[in-house]
């Protein structure tokens, strides 16, 4: 959905502003101004800015979303180990409090910036933009943005990512897609995580989870993975490699085009001693 080309106006809502429609009321002395802007207009503007920044550096940005504890950080650790340096990675971590996850990532020699959101239940494009000021994207192939663990709010905020990956861990139950349709509809890839627990949590039926996804008209692929045993990691790496290739091709084909990304400040690592981004 965008705010410029009129695609906000659909069969579903055009009756509201049509002559005689509910929203065309004009009481005397008052003026009804038709707007039809997305409510997240400012966030979406910042997200486009972030995306242009990623594109300028040929970086694939992946937004990882799930419930708290579904294994996002563990998946990233397993990914870093499995890639063994084949692709260069950086991570932005979103949590309400602590640097724990960023520290886990840094132990693997990968740069990680922690965003502490305070009480905010999601990352937004402005928070990610601020974090980018502390991160050098030169030479990075994939930037993972690990969103705040939450199956509700993160789905509503574009961060400038190229792909959304949503994890559903086996202990959560196979009906999560039916309960949180907005989140799972946003996914470009769904990963069933902690599949090593399937033998003990055998009431989770992967087929049923896929059935609920189909009810949401989700055509995105589903990958089963265990960060602990390494099962399925090769399918995940293949998906990542395919997306990196697509991103490189897009960057290559747009080289020589006029720059689309300009602003009055510079990105890059903050001076020594700079604090991590907090909000």
């Amino acid at each position, binding site marked *: 959905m965008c705010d410029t080309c009129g695609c906000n106006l659909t069969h579903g809502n055009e009756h509201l502003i049509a002559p005689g429609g509910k929203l065309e009321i004009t*009481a005397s002395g008052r*003026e*009804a101004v038709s707007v039809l802007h997305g409510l997240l207009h400012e966030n979406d503007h910042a997200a486009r800015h972030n995306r242009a920044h990623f594109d300028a550096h040929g970086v694939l940005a992946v937004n990882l979303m799930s419930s708290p504890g579904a294994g996002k950080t563990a998946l990233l650790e397993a990914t870093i180990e499995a890639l063994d340096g084949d692709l260069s990675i950086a991570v932005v971590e979103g949590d309400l409090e602590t640097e724990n996850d960023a520290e886990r990532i840094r132990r693997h020699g990968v740069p990680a910036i922690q965003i502490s959101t305070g009480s905010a239940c999601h990352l937004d494009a402005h928070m990610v933009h601020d974090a980018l000021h502390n991160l050098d994207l030169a030479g990075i192939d994939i930037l993972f943005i690990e969103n705040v663990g939450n199956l509700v709010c993160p789905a509503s905020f574009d961060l400038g990512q190229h792909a959304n990956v949503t994890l559903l861990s086996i202990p959560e139950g196979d009906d999560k897609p039916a309960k949180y349709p907005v989140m799972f509809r946003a996914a470009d890839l769904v990963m069933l995580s902690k599949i090593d627990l399937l033998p003990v949590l055998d009431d989770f039926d992967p087929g049923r989870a896929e059935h609920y996804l189909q009810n949401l008209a989700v055509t995105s692929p589903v990958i089963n993975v265990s960060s602990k045993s390494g099962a399925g990691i090769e399918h995940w790496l293949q998906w990542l490699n395919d997306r990196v290739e697509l991103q490189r091709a897009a960057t290559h084909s747009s080289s020589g085009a006029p720059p689309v990304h300009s602003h009055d400040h510079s990105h890059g690592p903050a001076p020594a001693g700079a604090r991590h981004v907090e909000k």
Partner: protein
Amino acid sequence: MHELALCQAMMSQVETIARTHRASRVTSITLGVGPLAGVEAQLLHHAYPIASAGTIAEGAELVIEETPIRVHCGRCNEDSDALVNRLVCGRCGDWRTELVSGDELLLVSVELDKTCPSPTGELH
């Protein structure tokens, strides 16, 4: 819940519109929200007085219109109504549908009062 953050984003847009149109106050704000927008209308109503306090829209009515969930089926080329977690074609049952409406999160319109209060406080 992110409804307060959304209300604050909305107030920022509404204040810009009111300033551009030289309005003295905002009397009504209308949103179009689909069931698949991930936003609860009730929570928006709760957050709204907090976000609008002290702004040009303080006291303005907040109207939230729910847009219907409609899907288009590529197989039978028909549009049909659907449910929030069952977006299959209402006619042939195929699941590879496209959402036509139902995920909107729109600031649809703003009603402005353009009369200016006189120094005595009377409107003219």
